């Protein structure tokens, strides 16, 4: 009883309300399965957090070692980074709207907001790739200095995560349009929501530690 209470209570706010046609017994079985999956995914995210912590630590040690090459102040274009940031923040909000629509059981709005989130995420990646191409074209590639190695590793790892999230989101777009809204689809969408919000949180660290602090020095 106590352990049941603990696990069900743990991730309760992320689990959408059950649809009325599901039987209570089946429902509680689904819910505890959902709780385990979502908590497990959360633990994965926390370990991913440690990966980023290592990259942030590396960057904070190497971030000023320009080796006579271009400095962070010369390279970073803050209005451009602000545009990237707002893209990602807007996509985090629209993914929230996916979860609201999911709880309401509104398939049309789930698909619409999922597509909007996908487009915003794609916009973010597009801007980032364009920035990388510009920097490498200017001779500021990852091989130029310790600062640039650390920069491309940290920002690139975040970009790869976002790209992975976009692939996942494309799969969810197909599933959400084809599958019925059973117990499985909400769990997958909930895990993706955690992943997406998590990447936006990592980006707060990136724009503060890398871009803003770098542009100030």
């Amino acid at each position, binding site marked *: 009883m106590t352990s*049941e*209470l*603990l696990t*069900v*209570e*743990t*991730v*309760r*706010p*992320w689990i959408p*309300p*059950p649809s009325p046609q599901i039987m209570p017994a089946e*429902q*509680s079985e689904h*819910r505890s399965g959902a709780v385990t999956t979502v*908590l497990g995914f*959360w*633990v994965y995210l*926390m370990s991913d*957090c*440690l990966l980023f*912590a*290592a990259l*942030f*630590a*590396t960057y*904070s*040690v190497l971030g000023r070692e320009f080796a006579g090459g271009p400095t962070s102040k010369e390279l970073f274009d*803050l*209005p451009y*980074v*602000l545009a990237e*940031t*707002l893209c990602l*923040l807007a996509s*985090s*909000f629209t993914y*929230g*709207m996916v*979860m*609201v629509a999911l*709880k309401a059981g509104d398939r049309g709005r789930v698909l619409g907001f999922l597509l909007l989130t996908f487009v915003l995420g794609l916009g973010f990646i597009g801007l980032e790739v364009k920035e990388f191409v510009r920097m490498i074209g200017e001779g500021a590639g990852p091989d130029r200095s310790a600062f640039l190695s650390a920069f491309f590793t940290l920002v690139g790892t975040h970009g790869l995560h976002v790209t992975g999230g976009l692939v996942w989101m494309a799969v969810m777009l197909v599933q959400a349009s084809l599958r019925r809204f059973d117990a499985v689809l909400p769990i997958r969408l909930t895990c993706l929501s*955690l992943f997406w*919000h*998590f990447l*936006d*949180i990592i980006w*707060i*660290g990136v*724009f*503060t*530690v890398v871009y*803003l*602090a770098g*542009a*100030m*020095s």
Partner: protein
Amino acid sequence: MNVSATIRPAEPRGGLQSYVTGALLALALTLAPFALVMSGASGTNAVAGIFGLAVIQIVVHMVFFLHLGRSDQRWNLTAFVFTVLIVGILVGGSYWVMYHLDHNMMPMTME
């Protein structure tokens, strides 16, 4: 009894309100440090300012987007607090060690 309590329909959890509030706060907390740096602020206080705003924004995202920190999310919160501890040791420790290493490796001045 506890299960019936979990399926109460009228809870405000993860609702529209939470995301709208979170998005507005996050927008303000994003624009403020960018405005600060783009207006040419620099120095220790400005650095402390943007880092402080980043920490506040992370908390805003945690509370309004991830809905962490409610009394019914003990294990997620426990895992998160533990992660914060490890991240603190990793980042703070690296910086501390490397700073002292750098200091000790400074070229000696002539006696």
